């Protein structure tokens, strides 16, 4: 398929592909097995220029937009989505700063993120506030020029490894969604610590921990935008970041498809390669068709957001891309394991890991059930506004 990529976009694909095969592939199994964080890869990812694609040039990035981010995440996720996530989840933690911060805050944080020197993370979810994110319990109580934070954020990607955190807390319980505010909190701030590292099914090279705030004193200058803007910041961040999750899922699916085709052409049963059997051919045909459809939806969404310069008008499409790509990833990786048969179930082959890694894409940054709510809400809203 020709997606009419510009020369620069094609360079992103080539750079990320080369990087994934030379740098990520040799270490992906080891990090998956041991749940170690791939700092040596992250450092090189920064040097390769793959960390600042969505950050404007004036803040040290390359200004190649959401599509630029998606192309890199897709290529790297074909090889290992868990390692690619160090950068993609940094995007999630960075969007609140990029979209809503003061110029001063942008100058302070974005160049280091763009160069890959520092990672970021996004602190929204809590133990009792998952899909119902606005039901969070973490509070930020004003005290002169400071806010005092108390509470615990759960399942935060990059936690403990990242140095820059976009954290959401209740500043006024009585104001509902207008009672939330967002802060930039740096690792090492007194009163800010991390819980234990979670042991996960998939994306095991990615670090997931709690953020624990105990009388954590934050100067008001660390607030993003103004008091009460938290919900707006969170929602718009997610509209912008969901294509990145979709790209991660798409990469996993495309990687599993490639592995499946190669395997089917080599594996012999009944005296012939299994790719000669129609049962396998039809599975491969379905997988390839779904991967291509997922890619077309994602690229169109990313391009729409880049052209508009804002994801607000494409909340529905952003949710569609995340929903579809992640469902395809789960299905395609499951079929990939099936094509590999018994070998697919073994850790010596890469597809079982892809299947484990795929599952999270249906869950995080809004479960696929929440995505469907979002899409339906968008449909009803646009129909109602026509009257």
């Amino acid at each position: 398929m020709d997606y009419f990529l510009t020369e620069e976009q094609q360079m992103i694909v080539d750079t990320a592909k080369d990087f994934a095969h030379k740098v990520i592939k040799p270490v992906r199994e080891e990090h998956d097995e041991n749940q170690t964080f791939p700092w040596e890869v992250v450092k090189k990812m920064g040097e390769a220029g793959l960390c600042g694609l969505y950050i404007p040039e004036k803040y040290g990035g390359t200004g190649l937009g959401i599509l630029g981010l998606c192309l890199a995440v897709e290529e790297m996720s074909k090889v290992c989505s868990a390692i690619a996530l160090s950068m993609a989840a940094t995007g999630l933690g960075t969007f609140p700063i990029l979209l809503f911060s003061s110029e001063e805050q942008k100058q302070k944080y974005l160049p280091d993120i763009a160069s890959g020197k520092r990672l970021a993370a996004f602190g929204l979810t809590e133990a009792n506030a998952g899909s119902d994110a606005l039901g969070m319990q973490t509070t930020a109580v004003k005290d002169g020029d400071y806010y005092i934070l108390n509470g615990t954020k759960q399942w935060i990607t990059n936690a403990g490894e990242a140095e820059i955190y976009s954290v959401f807390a209740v500043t006024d319980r009585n104001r509902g969604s207008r009672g939330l505010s967002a802060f930039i909190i740096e690792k090492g701030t007194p009163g800010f610590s991390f819980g234990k590292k979670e042991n996960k099914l998939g994306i095991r090279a990615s670090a997931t921990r709690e953020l624990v705030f105990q009388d954590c004193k934050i100067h008001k200058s660390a607030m993003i935008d103004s008091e009460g803007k938290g919900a707006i910041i969170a929602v718009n961040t997610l509209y912008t970041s969901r294509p990145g999750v979709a790209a991660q899922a798409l990469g996993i699916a495309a990687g599993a498809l490639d592995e499946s085709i190669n395997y089917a052409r080599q594996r012999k049963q009944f005296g012939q390669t299994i790719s000669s059997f129609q049962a396998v051919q039809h599975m491969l045909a379905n997988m390839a068709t779904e991967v291509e459809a997922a890619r077309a939806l994602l690229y169109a969404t990313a391009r729409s957001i880049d052209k508009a310069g804002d994801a607000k008008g494409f909340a529905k499409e952003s949710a569609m891309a995340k929903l579809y790509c992640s469902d395809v990833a789960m299905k395609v990786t499951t079929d990939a394991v099936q094509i590999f048969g018994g070998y697919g179930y073994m850790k010596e082959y890469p597809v079982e890991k892809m299947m484990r890694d795929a599952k999270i894409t249906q869950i995080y940054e809004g479960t696929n059930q929440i995505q469907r709510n979002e899409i339906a809400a968008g449909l009803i809203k646009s129909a109602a506004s026509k009257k």
Partner: protein
Amino acid sequence: MNIVVSIKQVPGTTKVAINPATNTLIRAGVEAIINPFDMYAIEEAIRLREKFGGKVTCITMGPPQAEEALKSAIAMGADDGILISDRAFAGSDTLATSYTLAMGIKKFGQFDIILTGKQAMDGDTAQVGPGIAQWLNIPFIAWVKKIEDVKEDAKTIRVERMMDDGYEVLEGPLPILLSVVKEINEPRTESLRGKMKAKNFKATVLSAKDIEADPDFIGLRGSPTIVNRVFVPVRSGKKELVEGATVEEKVSKVVASLRESKLVN
């Protein structure tokens, strides 16, 4: 710190077919790559620049399409590239090639360190690096596996040279030429910014006239090499420790032994 890296474009031999009639490599239509050993030299040059500042310039002798090798070096992070290209260089052996590269480097001007890979993977001679040092009349250390230290003020460098059984620590003055082994580093992949820079990069092209080459020293005319036989030399592995109270005494014993074996006059 000015660092020059002498590189060579070679055929990507994993993809080369062999002509069954002549038993030679079919080079036409084969993807050309930077000699893999030179990649370590480029990487080391970039690391030196990252540590000490300065500029990394890659130089190569070859046909016009060798500019692609320089572009790849730019994509990795080199600052500049010089292509020495002229029909008059055709048929150069390692002597003529090292002369030509040395003349090109002279034209370039100031340099502190020249890096090369330990050898090219097509010719495998490992002669061009030392040849350049000889023509430039600067010291040369082969098989460097680590640059331990560079003292910019004192103009000295300390390196580890890989040997069959261990390594030697050597110190030398700058400017110097080092040939590096693959143990020295892990070459980085091409970066996005580098690729963008490489896209618009035009190498400085120098002809035989530009480098003021003596016509007797270049191309076929400057190449006295005749390939008589190609073989893998047998290594005896025999070694002898020379004992002595002073360095002078040890050296005279070594010299006597070499004379006895008629290796020196």
